[in-house]
């Protein structure tokens, strides 16, 4: 799809706004779900059912003072939150939202996504280092060690998907899952171990519980964002929620048929008029958002189900269990492909 640059810019603008709004919806959803899981109502004062709470929070954060500690490096101190937000938003360009609705449809999109994930490690590390506070430094260090450790297993889990669909293009990966009555060709059925590996590593990469050691409040105060206030803190917060929504989208794209409706090929065979129609496109957008919403819910659910890991357990799990398992899984997928051929 070759569009003029201003159309691309417009769509990119829309997608970024969509991510911003979904981030605030997610903040609300997380607080509300957490509330109900702990048998309390959650935010319910600002607006109907407390729905305007995240917007109120943003307004509050904008009007707060921006404190840069004397010992901090001011340039890097501002650069780090910017990097986090930019990377989180850029990843949104790679997600296919419906057939033909993707901003950057490139041949290596999944590699670019992994590259962006790697760059976001810098944001956390630089935030920890530039603050020149011991808690921040420890949080940043822990976080960078954790993220690079789990990146390997994530890369190998993606590799097993790439093996199946012979492509690094996320659109091709989605279209490759269209067979099997539109359900059983989803990669979660063809590559279940890879799916579990990817979900676990996605939790670690987005620093979500039970892998939220970088922020472990009880030990590190706030981790890498201890010394951040006002909108800079808000940007870390925003980036975290955008990241975790994008991670849900990537899980859906790689393993749960992306924008494909369940049983899409069967439905389209019943109603041929539906093929390539705008209705189908709208349904696909709805489908992918619903699927991603479900995984966003799983992220919140897991947060209140599993206790946080100890740091040694985290590294042991990443290096001694997930990495060998991911390697073996990729090889097993290759062998099965060779046998089926």
């Amino acid at each position, binding site marked *: 799809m070759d569009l003029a640059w201003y159309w691309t810019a417009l769509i990119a603008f829309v997608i970024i706004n969509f991510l911003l709004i979904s981030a605030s919806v997610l903040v609300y959803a997380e607080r509300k779900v957490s509330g109900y899981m702990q048998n309390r109502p959650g935010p319910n004062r600002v607006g109907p059912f407390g729905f305007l709470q995240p917007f109120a929070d943003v307004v509050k*954060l904008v009007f707060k003072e921006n404190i840069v500690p004397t010992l901090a490096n001011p340039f890097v101190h501002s650069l780090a939150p910017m990097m986090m*937000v930019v990377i989180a938003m850029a990843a949104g360009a790679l997600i296919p939202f419906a057939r033909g609705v993707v901003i950057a449809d490139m041949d290596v999109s999944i590699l670019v996504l992994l590259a962006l994930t790697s760059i976001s490690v810098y944001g956390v590390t630089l935030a920890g280092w530039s603050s020149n506070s011991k808690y921040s430094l420890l949080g940043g260090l822990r976080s960078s060690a954790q993220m690079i450790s789990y990146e390997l297993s994530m890369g190998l889990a993606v590799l097993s998907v790439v093996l199946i669909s012979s492509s690094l293009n996320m659109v091709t990966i989605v279209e490759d899952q269209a067979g099997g009555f539109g359900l059983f060709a989803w990669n979660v059925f063809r590559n279940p171990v890879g799916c579990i590996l990817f979900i676990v590593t996605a939790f670690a990469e987005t620093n979500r519980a039970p892998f939220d050691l970088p922020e472990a409040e009880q030990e590190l105060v706030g981790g890498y964002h201890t010394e951040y206030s006002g909108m800079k803190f808000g940007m870390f917060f925003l980036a975290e929620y955008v990241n975790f929504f994008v991670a849900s989208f990537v899980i859906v794209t790689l393993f749960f048929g992306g924008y494909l409706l369940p049983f899409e090929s069967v439905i389209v065979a019943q109603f041929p008029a539906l093929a390539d129609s705008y209705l189908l496109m709208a349904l696909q957008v709805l489908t992918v958002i619903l699927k991603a919403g479900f995984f966003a819910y799983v992220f919140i659910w897991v947060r209140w189900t599993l206790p946080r890991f100890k740091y040694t357990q985290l590294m042991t799990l990443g290096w001694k269990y997930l990495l060998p398992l991911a390697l073996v899984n990729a090889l097993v997928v290759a062998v099965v492909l060779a046998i089926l051929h």
Partner: protein
Amino acid sequence: MLSDFTPLFIQLLIAIGLSFTLLKAAALIGPKRANTIKLTSYESGMDPIGSARDRYSVKFYLVAMIFIVFDVEVVFLYPWAVTFSEFLDAGVGLGVLSVVFLFVIILAIGLLYDIKKGGLEFD
């Protein structure tokens, strides 16, 4: 194809513009009432002792070094993963697979050595 990347760069530019606006807007709107105590690093209410830019555990360096080795390994495996079905179609799948097995086994021995030497013990 570099032109494939143009949309991504456009998205990046918009995202940079957004984050820059957020930073600048908050810096303009927010109050500026700095004082010495507010600007000291947080250390649980104490005056900070020494600098945070101190030496830290060598374990982190070890993890980073091992990461580079295995990350490059994963990168080497990607071209194989993309073209594997073509190798299968060409009828040389088994040969290619055994080469990849050899490659992975060599690195697995490296990982095993690292674990045995205690390079990944964090206690």
